[in-house]
C-alpha cells in the first residue's frame, strides 16, 4: 500500500498545533501550499541535511516539537545522521521519511536499496527510541496524535506516492533567506 503525499501532508496539518516542520524537496514544495506556516523550515539547500538542521533546532528549543519530513534519497545521502541523532537524544524530534523509492526531483530515478534497505530497522539499530513503517493514510492519521506526543527520537518511514494535487517546483521560495528570517522570528516569538 501507499498513500498520496498531499493527503499525508493534509493529515499532518489537521493534527499540527505549534510544531516546527522541517521539510525537503517535493514534501516541502507541497507543504508550503497545504499548510502554510511561519514555522515551516524549508531552507535545506544541500541534499541530505534536513535532519541535521532539525536536530539543531530541536536542541536549541527543547520546549518545541520538531517534525522533519526527510526523503529516502536524502536520508541515504546522510545516513550517519541516524547515529548522530540517536546519540544526541532529542526527545522532541519526530523524523519522518517520505519514501517514494525515487529521486523524484532529479528525474524519478530509483534510489538504491528499494525493497531491501529498511529505514525502520536502520533507525532502531542506530538507537532511536522507536521506529515504524506506515503505508496507509488511515494508519498515519490515527497514529499522529501519539507520534506528536511521543518521546523521541522516533522515526516513521512513510510510504508515499505523488499526490493528486501538485505545484511547480519553487526552490526560490523554499530557500528564501527572507522566509528563513521570518521563521526565526516566529520561533523566537514562541519562546517561553
Amino acid at each position, binding site marked *: 500500500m501507499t498513500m498520496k503525499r498531499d493527503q499525508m501532508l493534509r493529515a499532518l496539518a489537521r493534527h499540527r498545533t505549534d510544531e516546527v516542520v522541517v521539510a525537503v524537496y517535493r514534501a516541502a514544495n507541497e507543504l508550503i501550499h497545504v499548510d502554510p506556516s511561519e514555522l515551516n*523550515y524549508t*531552507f*535545506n*539547500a*544541500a541534499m*541530505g*541535511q*534536513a535532519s*541535521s*538542521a*532539525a*536536530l*539543531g*533546532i*530541536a*536542541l*536549541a*528549543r527543547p520546549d518545541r516539537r520538531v517534525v522533519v519530513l526527510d526523503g529516502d534519497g536524502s536520508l541515504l545521502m*546522510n545516513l*550517519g*545522521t541516524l*547515529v*548522530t541523532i540517536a*546519540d*544526541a537524544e532529542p526527545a522532541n524530534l519526530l523524523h519522518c521519511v517520505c519514501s517514494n523509492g525515487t529521486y523524484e526531483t532529479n528525474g524519478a530515478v530509483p534510489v538504491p536499496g528499494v525493497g531491501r534497505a529498511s529505514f525502520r530497522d536502520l533507525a532502531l539499530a542506530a538507537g532511536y527510541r522507536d521506529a515504524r513503517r506506515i503505508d496507509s493514510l488511515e494508519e498515519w492519521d490515527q497514529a499522529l496524535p501519539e507520534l506528536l506526543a511521543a518521546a523521541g527520537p522516533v522515526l516513521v518511514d512513510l510510504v508515499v506516492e505523488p499526490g493528486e494535487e501538485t505545484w511547480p517546483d519553487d526552490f526560490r521560495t523554499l*530557500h528564501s*533567506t527572507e522566509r*528563513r528570517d521570518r*521563521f*526565526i522570528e516566529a*520561533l*523566537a516569538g514562541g*519562546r517561553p
Partner: protein
Amino acid sequence: MTAQARAPLSAAAMRAQLDRAGVRFVAALPDITTSEHLLKPMLADPAIRVVQVCKEDEGISICAGLYAGGERSVLLMQHTGLLDSINCLRAVGIEGENPVCMIVGLLRNEPGVPPSHSPRYGLRIVQPILGAMGVENELLEFAGDEERIGPAIERSYERRRPVVLLVGGEPL
C-alpha cells in the same frame, strides 16, 4: 622571534573565547590538533553541549539549526572534513546566510610556515579554496592568537556569514 621560540596556543584561552562569545553548543568530529586539550575537556564539561557528528557536513547544518533556534555554536573538525563539506558550506553557510563558525585543525601543519607554502597539497589548497568561496578565515598558531576567536565569532553572527578559524598548531 622564531616559530620554535614562540609559545603555543592555549586551549584554556580558546575555550574562554568561546564562553565569552556565548557559545553553548559545539558540533565536533575529532581532530588530532585539538582533540586532546580542547575537545576532550569540553566533552567532560556539562556547561557546554558537545554534539558528536558522524560526518562534518552534518555539523554545518546542526549549527544552522541552532542559529535558527536562537543558540550560538561552533563546529570543530579537521581540514580534511572541511574539504569534504564544501557543498554544504556553499549552500547552508554562504547562500543560506548562516553564521557557521568553524574551528579547523590543520593536520601536520608546521607553525610558522604559511599553509599556502606547505609541502602538503591538502594544506596548501585550504586557504585558496576559502578565498575563492569568499569565506573569512584566520590562522591561529601561537599564544595570543586565541584573542581573535571571539571577535571572529561576533563578526560571523553580525554578518550572518561563515568564518573559519584555522588552527595551525596544537593548543596545550
